[in-house]
């Protein structure tokens, strides 16, 4: 066998073997798993505001799963970016200002004396948070409003305002004069009556890694203040834990709100689908009626022309 033939044969066999194995595996593992999209979607604020240029939160989650940037969600802002970065093990990036600025949480409010009852805003609301009827004044159910701003453009009389909710400021405690850097002496660990790692929790909260603090059982802290009392650097440890707890609680509330908004949105989608199906059914019924009527008219016309023919025959 020639050398060239040997080379061709060897690579041919090898490539054939590899190709067949890959084809078989691809066939075997072809089912698509949507768990990643669900995981990402759960971290998005579910306002369905479409500021990310995708039609809603889930489409954006699907895009992120395919490699889209994580910094296109203005309502979620820094918190959502940091949660997504943590999930996907990416660098935290600043919000892309092309898609909007992160502002305080807002709620839509209809100035009721100006509302003309056109129902345009009701159709625009993705979570069905606006109630009203044609020629009747509308109003927003404040608890259900996600502040997505989608009702603003359709309103012909500009009677919808966005009102910012007062925000609670969550920031690290101010350094006191006596406070020094942590020297990792471990006295706080011995002092803690519920066997936590106060120094570890402190460094997590200082680094804004609240999730990690939670996984180190921050919520078990009873805020007794013993760690603070024994700390030779006079670090106000309990204040840090209180901050961490309130941030985590705030995050939890946000998740619940997002989950609720998502459910409302799904209901909204279902309602629209039902409405469309109903309209479609009625349209078909009407066109069937019309077809029947046309057939009937055709019958009458035929009968008339027959009768006329007979009359003419009689006259002749």
């Amino acid at each position: 066998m020639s050398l060239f033939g040997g080379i061709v044969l060897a690579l041919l066999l090898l490539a054939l073997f590899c190709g067949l194995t890959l084809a078989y595996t691809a066939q075997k593992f072809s089912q698509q798993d949507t768990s990643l999209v669900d995981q990402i979607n759960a971290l998005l604020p579910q306002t369905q505001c479409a500021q990310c240029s995708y039609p809603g939160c889930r489409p954006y989650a699907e895009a992120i799963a395919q490699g889209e940037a994580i910094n296109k969600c203005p309502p979620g802002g820094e918190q959502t970016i940091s949660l997504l970065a943590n999930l996907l093990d990416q660098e935290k990036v600043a919000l892309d200002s092309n898609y909007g600025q992160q502002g305080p949480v807002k709620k839509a409010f209809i100035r009721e004396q100006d509302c003309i009852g056109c129902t345009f805003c009701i159709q625009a609301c993705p979570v069905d948070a606006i109630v009203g009827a044609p020629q009747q004044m509308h109003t927003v159910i404040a608890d259900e409003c996600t502040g997505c701003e989608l009702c603003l453009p359709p309103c012909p009389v500009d009677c919808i305002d966005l009102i910012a909710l007062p925000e609670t400021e969550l920031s690290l405690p101010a350094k006191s004069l006596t406070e020094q850097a942590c020297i990792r002496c471990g006295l706080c660990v011995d002092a803690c009556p519920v066997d936590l790692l106060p120094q570890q929790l402190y460094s997590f909260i200082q680094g804004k890694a609240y999730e990690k603090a939670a996984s180190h059982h921050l919520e078990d802290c009873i805020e007794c203040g013993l760690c603070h009392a024994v700390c030779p650097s006079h670090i106000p440890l309990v204040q840090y834990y209180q901050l961490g707890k309130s941030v985590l609680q705030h995050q939890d509330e946000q998740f619940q709100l997002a989950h609720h908004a998502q459910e409302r949105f799904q209901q909204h989608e279902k309602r629209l689908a039902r409405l469309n199906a109903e309209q479609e059914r009625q349209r078909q019924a009407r066109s069937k009626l019309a077809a029947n009527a046309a057939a009937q008219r055709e019958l009458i016309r035929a009968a008339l022309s027959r009768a006329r023919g007979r009359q003419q025959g009689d006259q002749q």
Partner: protein
Amino acid sequence: MSELILLLIGAILVNNFVLVQFLGLCPFMGTSRKIETAIGMAAASTFVLTLSAMLSYLIYHYLLIPLGIPWLRTIAFIVLIAAIVNLTEIIMSATSPLLHRVLGIFLPLITSNCAVLGVALLNINQARSFIEATVFGFGAALGFSLVLILFAALRERLDHADVPEPFRGPAIAMISAGLMSLAFMGFTGLVQV
């Protein structure tokens, strides 16, 4: 048997592919930011390394030698490794989409991980048997996994340490990797391979 154990320990600790031979540094730095990611990468690399060590042995001895073209081994091994990495990627995208997304480019980059090709070529150079080749590949994979996961744990701690400003990020990671490498120098002479 003791030969095999020595070979295994040698590959894991003494001739650790990452910290002693400096092979496969790209995933070592790139996927060690979180322990979960590091474990995923370690598992994927272990699968690829062991399988490629076995298959490259078979291909060399039962395809290339009979056809009289042993010098074609580099190309043949690369084709084989690329196929195994593709296989891993297909399986992972179906079984763990999150890990697939997180590892991103580093998954196909296992192909160009020189540790994988290194193991295959070293096995040929040192004329090992099939069992020895497999054990060596597996040991190399375990060594890689060990240092990758240890390093990820270190980096997670570093994230929240008060590192001086200019050293933040990759700089302190490089320094830590260097210190780990120094520590692994201590294993020299533990066993002679």
